[in-house]
């Protein structure tokens, strides 16, 4: 049941991003998507930091908070420097509501069930963000510095995905 819920949330999350690849996004919208995507994973990481039972999962959650906070600081600094005001859009909004849904779902779980649900969502989330980076955000970024920042942080998302998969494997 829980797994179905998580799968449902993950699928629901992916739809807008898939839809997005078809349409053009401007830099202001990209800025909003990047900041929201990081914030969503920071929020989930904070929950895992306090509620996970497996030390590996706890450590992973803590690292997600650190890494995504760092990326967000750099993204915010750049956006401020460029004088771009992040523009809210459907993708950013659905990321936000998907993140809230995930946190709500996690808050009802404990122990091993929590650990599994959190990591499962992290795997799906990082895969989803990587797809968005490759199909929409990086090709869509007009400003060279914004594009460079996205290219620079992309490998971190790959590493997080690999790391999440490793943790997921060890939980089974």
């Amino acid at each position: 049941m829980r797994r179905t819920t998580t799968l449902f949330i993950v699928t629901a999350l992916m739809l807008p991003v898939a839809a997005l690849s078809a349409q053009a996004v401007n830099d202001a919208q990209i800025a909003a998507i990047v900041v929201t995507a990081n914030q969503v994973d920071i929020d989930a990481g904070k929950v895992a930091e306090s509620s996970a039972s497996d030390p590996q999962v706890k450590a992973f959650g803590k690292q997600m908070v650190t890494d995504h906070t760092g990326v967000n600081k750099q993204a915010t600094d750049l956006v401020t420097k460029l004088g771009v005001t992040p523009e809210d859009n459907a993708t950013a909004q659905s990321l936000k509501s998907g993140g809230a849904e995930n946190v709500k779902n996690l808050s009802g779980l404990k122990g091993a069930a929590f650990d599994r649900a959190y990591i499962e969502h992290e795997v799906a989330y990082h895969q989803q963000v990587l797809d968005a980076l490759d199909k929409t955000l990086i090709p869509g970024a007009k400003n060279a510095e914004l594009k460079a920042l996205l290219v620079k942080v992309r490998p971190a998302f790959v590493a997080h995905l690999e790391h999440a998969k490793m943790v997921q494997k060890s939980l089974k």
Partner: protein
Amino acid sequence: MGIRPGRGMFVVLGVLALVVVLAVLALLRTGLSADRTPGRVETLAARNLVRLSIPTAEASRRSPLNGSEAWRQGTDLFRNHCALCHGAAGRGATAIGPHMYPPVPDLASPEIQRFSDGALFAVVSHGVSWTGMPAFGRSLGESDRWKLVAFVRRTPSLTAADLIPRDGPNASTRIVMDGTSFHPDEATVDSGAVVLWANLDPFPHNVTSESGNFHSGDLAPDGTWVFRPTERGTFEYHCSLHPGMKAVLRVR
């Protein structure tokens, strides 16, 4: 109201006395310790005071250096004279930078970048009193100081490759962590040589050898780690936080 001049002076003196008393009280409460973080108002006031205190004649000076390569020479000077506090990339998050009062600023930040070239030159030359910034006017020539200004201007757009020292007799081997990978990912050094890792990513990385011979601990953004390998051999290492971030160090 009919305040006579004499009374006006008393008011001014009273206000001044109050300011002095408040300052003394603040000092008694915190002492002159540096293990605090300056408040927003203090930071804003101090930054603007530094900028505005530079005479217009100095602030409006233009760099005599022509060409776009001045900052490259500035990179070496910066590493030798400034990186201890400012970090090799100038972002300020070194081991000691955040613990100074005021903390070492991020030179790439908009607050610093709004200083004119002339103002930056004045800061490098004269230093800033009541901070850790020394005056380099007597130890470095004018051309070198302008090269440092060029480097500071470059800090917002520095890339990993920019910081790798070009060949030279005392160039240490420098490996940067950028884009969640090591550059270069294969390095060969002599036994006893200095190897320096610099983290240019906005989140922590570490250097962990597979065999357990060396471990840097987590390096904060802009943090560096220096290691002198003495044991000869081929050492594979990675960042334990980011699987897939791997490299090799050969010691001959």
